[in-house]
């Protein structure tokens, strides 16, 4: 059984930009430990000489001509924004 600690859960949550309460961290600690332990079933297999694949299709390096094309306007890009100002997305301050 691989045990993921509460500290690890909080670290991973931070990487994932998620906020977890103490209660959630406790629950996730147990659930993730259980799922990761289950995933270690894969260690039964010797994969030393096996190449990993990222997807199952044969496509490689699909390229297209680098030509300009019309896309959305600035106004369209902003119309679903939670907050905007002067034609830009507005966000809370980044620096303290």
């Amino acid at each position, binding site marked *: 059984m691989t045990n993921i600690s509460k500290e690890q859960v909080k670290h991973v949550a931070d990487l994932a930009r998620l906020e977890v309460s103490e209660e959630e961290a406790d629950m996730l600690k147990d659930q993730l430990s259980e799922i990761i332990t289950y995933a270690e079933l894969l260690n039964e297999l010797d994969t030393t000489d096996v190449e990993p694949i990222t997807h199952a299709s044969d496509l490689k390096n699909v390229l297209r001509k680098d030509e300009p094309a019309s896309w959305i306007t600035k106004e*369209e890009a902003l119309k679903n924004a939670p907050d905007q100002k002067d034609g830009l997305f507005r966000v809370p301050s980044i620096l303290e």
Partner: protein
Amino acid sequence: MSLFDHTIRELEEKLHNKEIKVADLVDASYKRIHEVDDQVHAFLTLNEENARTAAQEMDEAADKSGSLFGIPAGIKDNIVTKALRTTCASKMLDNFNDPLYDATVMKKLNEQNMITIGKLNMDEFAMGSSNENSGYFITRNPWNTDYVPGGSSGGSAASVAAGEVLFSLGSDTGGSIREPASFCGVVGMKPTYGRVSRFGLVAFASSLDQIGPITRSVEDNARVLEVLAGQDPNDSTSAHLEVPKYTDALTNDVKGMKIAVPKEYLGEGVSPEVKEAVEKALKVYESLGATWEEVSLPHSKYAVATYYIIASSEASSNLARFDGVRYGVRAEADNMMDMFKKSRSQGFGEEVKRRIMLGTFALSSGYYDAYYKKAQKVRTLMKNDYDKIFEEYDVVIGPTAPTPAFKVGEKTDDPLTMYASDILTIPVNLAGVPGISIPCGLSDDGLPIGLQIIGNHFDESTVYRAAHAFEQATDHHKKRPQIGGAN
């Protein structure tokens, strides 16, 4: 008999002969929705005003072309529809009322004059096998509303089964079209990876996701896929291959077809009544002149573990875009980092957060090789298993799901038990091959059982041929749930 008991080809004829109008079809759709959707809960958003206007325009138009002319359809809510609310059943996108563009599949359907009836409920961001992870409400199985419709395309399958629309679009990452199709007694196809453009499908796991049709008949399914399939400059993973006319494959002839039946697909965990229904189906194939043999897919038992590492890892990366900046819901905070964290924590549901956490962990420094890379290597082995089988056989047949639909609430406490519902569908996504679920019987409790037919890469035609021959030789696809009276 409902109008939706007819195939699209039959309705086309009726429209052509002026026996019916497009407005009648759209009426039938909304009438049924108003009758049963307070029990089924398949729809998140209705497009009634636009649909009725479109119907009127089509009835008045001189040009009645289009292979889906006037056909009412429902669209899974993770497929982007221009100016029509698209939420992925997530509170994160609760206010995403005005999407800027249509997904490529929507463009293609619209070019054929399909009518969008509304957007369908699902597990949030397509993560789930029961629809219980919707951020809004739980879609119910029309055959018995105590039971789940399956997931994640639960609304897509339930709406077709309940006769609310003639067909729907779903998406399938680990079984999300086939498992609900199986639970709801309808036909659901996951095409080959790369067959249908994913442009405008909100990404869950990019190397596994595919859009596909859910219908009442194999013929309709083939007809819709003909519209959806094909290369798209906006999706670099869509294949540069010609699209066959799938309806031409429906020859009713499976003489000499070689069927592989993996012993792992009828083993432990598969319920006796599901096993029996599949064995009966194999007898039907024998009687039609096909032959079958038992084979082995030796890495099947690793499928669920492989899938949850790969899919969650890809999801953790794909869902990073939901940050409360450009669209979606934003939580108030004093600084940028807190705004990200609060928006994401309030917007995402429990299962989505669990998978983002799992994926982030598997990709994090020190764990990447042990989990993510390991899973990618096992994926190679699983793909090789399938490639080897298709050197000798035309199709692989087994159950779609190990059991019929389960009750609402039965599996919500334990993620791993829930994940096991996808054990027979996941390998198909990992290998990238096409798979269909068609009805093959009812359980003792009167719930549908699905037969899964899997084909070689880009050989949907053979899958459809096998599915259609079985359908025509049996009457399972004619059975309807009794919800809301005659359907």
